[in-house]
């Protein structure tokens, strides 16, 4: 049966089981907008295209499903780029539909034309320009498949306006076959055995677990294997929640603002088992001095991640969950290899416990309202049963340090790109995926101003996201660097011209709260969390508080500045 491009679009989305689309209209979207309006696919119209992509991203991170967003040509598409790059660096499965000027105008500098396929080439997993309506269904099928298979990532599909109007045959393919794209899921058994031998002979093993644990759904396997073999676990920022934050073997986050125990364990270890992590410079510190005594086992679905930044002794390309399952099998069956293992590593476990006890995460309690305290209270009040998003800066690092993430997909944060303005729209997306969940964006007063307009979206769709603003009157993280490395010359970082966030919230029809004293924290947070509306909680925290421990950029992980 013949359908037009817009109907094909809608049918394809239905066939993919898509229930929510984050979008913003324009001239080029009109045909599709109209067809969507007649469908029952949920449509969340945001206030800025960056918000649309971050919301789709938050939806994907929270639910494990593909996030979908649709924007118009030209400025709509360029506004989406930061969101696309954010998802790309964190390997989040998204399909972004951009609409394009009619085919015959492409390349003519037509009104609202940009080469969005060209602009986003370096920050998409793949992209398509649909030139013929008869290719549309197949391309959409492929786009979803590519976005979620292998190492996930954003895929862009650019649809010219005439293609969305043209008539074509609709048949949704049930299988995808791309001869040049066949990701490897199953790790090489020989390599896995080699890795297990190495672990069995180790005296100071440590897990270095990243976002791949969460993406591949491997947190149960990681917890099981670590517990079986008593291997302490350090998480990257993206890995938080992939291993229970209250587990006795948990060392905390490693890296620039990692815990003393995690960074020392990595530095002193003799075998590192990196899973779904990519040795980002924020995690490794100075690469030349990274884990000088360790042999490295690296499990990752993406071969380009392996031996990119550091030398790997046992590379294993495959799905983290798959590989960890095999490792569990081997550890269960080949007991002989592990005969003296426990006695070898008991001293190591002791040492890591000592580090944790002697150098816990801490902060000075000096009578002022401390952001770290606020985060601790949020954890206690929610019992860890919330979806937490963050902005970028100190707010993000304190959240990573002081909130104990117990389950995967409870921390949604921009790790790779570090995008201010991510947290709030991501929270909106997460709330769409889980309408009954408590979703909290932990924000800075700088970051929240980057996508503050999405408050209208939250109010319009009744998405009760809570934004907790750790208001320090500064672009705090940049100020911290100025304090440490630029003799306290606070150029550009004071944010004294912020709006009254309570009034902003109220102006949009949301709830506004303010906290100035420690004793009000619990009561007001509880009230805000119970409120049925979206809410801003403006918390006036100590302005010059800094994040510690800190490994200065370019230093090795053992060179930590402590509180």
């Amino acid at each position, binding site marked *: 049966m013949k359908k037009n491009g817009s109907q094909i679009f809608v049918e394809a989305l239905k066939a993919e089981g898509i229930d929510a689309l984050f979008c913003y209209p324009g001239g080029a979207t009109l045909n599709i907008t109209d067809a969507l309006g007649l469908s029952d696919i949920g449509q969340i119209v945001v206030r800025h295209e960056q918000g649309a992509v971050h919301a789709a991203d938050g939806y994907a991170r929270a639910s494990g499903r593909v996030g979908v967003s649709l924007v118009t040509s030209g400025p709509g598409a360029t506004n989406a780029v930061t969101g696309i790059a954010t998802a790309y660096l964190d390997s989040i499965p998204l399909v972004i539909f951009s609409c394009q000027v009619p085919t015959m105008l492409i390349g003519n500098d037509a009104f609202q034309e940009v080469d969005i396929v*060209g602009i986003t080439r370096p920050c998409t997993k793949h992209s398509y320009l649909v030139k013929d309506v008869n290719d549309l269904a197949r391309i959409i099928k492929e786009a979803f498949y590519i976005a*979620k*298979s292998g190492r*996930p990532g954003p895929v862009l599909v650019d649809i010219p306006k005439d293609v969305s109007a043209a008539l074509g045959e609709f048949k949704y393919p049930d299988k995808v076959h791309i001869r*040049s*794209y066949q990701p*490897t899921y*199953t790790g090489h058994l020989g390599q896995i055995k080699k890795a297990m031998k190495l672990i069995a002979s180790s005296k100071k093993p440590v897990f270095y677990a990243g976002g791949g644990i969460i993406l591949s759904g491997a947190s149960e396997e990681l917890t099981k294997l670590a517990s079986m073999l008593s291997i302490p676990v350090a998480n990257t920022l993206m890995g938080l929640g992939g291993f229970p934050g209250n587990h006795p073997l948990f060392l905390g986050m490693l890296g620039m603002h990692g815990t003393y125990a995690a960074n020392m364990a990595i530095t002193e270890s003799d075998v590192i088992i990196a899973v779904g992590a990519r040795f980002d410079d924020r995690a490794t510190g100075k690469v030349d001095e990274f884990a000088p005594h360790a042999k490295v086992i690296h499990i990752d679905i993406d071969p380009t991640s392996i031996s990119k930044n550091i030398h790997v002794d046992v590379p294993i390309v495959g799905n983290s969950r798959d590989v960890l399952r095999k490792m569990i099998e081997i550890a269960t069956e080949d007991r002989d290899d592990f005969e003296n293992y426990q006695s070898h590593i008991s001293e190591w476990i002791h040492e890591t416990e000592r580090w944790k006890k002697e150098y816990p995460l801490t902060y000075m309690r000096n009578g002022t309202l401390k952001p770290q305290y606020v985060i601790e209270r949020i954890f206690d009040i929610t019992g860890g049963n919330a979806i937490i998003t963050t902005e970028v800066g100190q707010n993000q690092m304190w959240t990573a340090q002081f909130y104990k993430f117990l389950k995967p997909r409870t921390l949604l944060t921009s790790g790779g790109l570090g995008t201010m303005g991510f947290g709030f729209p991501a929270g909106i997306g997460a709330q769409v995926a889980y309408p009954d969940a408590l979703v909290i964006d932990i924000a800075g007063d700088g970051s929240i101003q980057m996508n503050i307009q999405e408050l209208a979206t939250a109010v319009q769709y009744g998405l009760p996201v809570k934004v907790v603003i750790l208001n320090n009157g500064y672009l705090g993280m940049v100020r911290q660097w100025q304090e440490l490395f630029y003799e306290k010359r606070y150029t550009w970082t004071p944010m004294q011209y912020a709006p009254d966030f309570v009034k902003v919230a109220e102006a949009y029809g949301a709830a506004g709260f303010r906290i100035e004293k420690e004793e009000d924290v619990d009561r007001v947070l509880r009230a805000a969390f119970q409120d049925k509306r979206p809410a801003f909680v403006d918390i006036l925290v100590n302005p010059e508080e800094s994040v510690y421990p800190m490994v200065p950029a370019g230093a090795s992980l053992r060179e930590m500045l402590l509180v």
Partner: protein
Amino acid sequence: MRHIISILAENEFGVLSRVAGLFSGRGFNIESICVAETLDPTTSSMTIVTEGDDAIIEQVLKQLNKLINVIKVVDFKDADYVSREMVLVKVSTDDKIREEVPRMVKIFRGRIIDVSPKTYTIMITGDEAKIQAFLALIKPLGIKELVRTGPIAMMRGEKTIKMKEKHSKGGEEDGY
């Protein structure tokens, strides 16, 4: 170190810019690139010459492999291969060298493919060393214009860059 990399890719628009973008995005220079359809019109082959240490090239090869439209990537570094490039050279002629040029071209088994009262246009094919040697000889006579293709390369003997599809090694179809 200099590397000759051969790529088999889908013959679709945009593939070349994806490949080239991988190099430019990492700040590497492409010394030369030759692209054309293969025997199978749905695929095209590219021969790229670039410079870089082993770690960098390894990363480039992996990244190239990761491109959705790339079917196969081979670095000729350790392979036994043949390569050829072609150069067109236009020289001004006067009576003095009117005789000399054809002699040199003959020695190098090239051809004069265009003649005018004042110019010869010469075609030479061969490996890089041969082309360099020819150019060194002809240069003193005065070159008016020169265009080069950059090499295309192929493995010696039985070996081919087969259209072998990348195979999924087991596991669920989707699910990361």
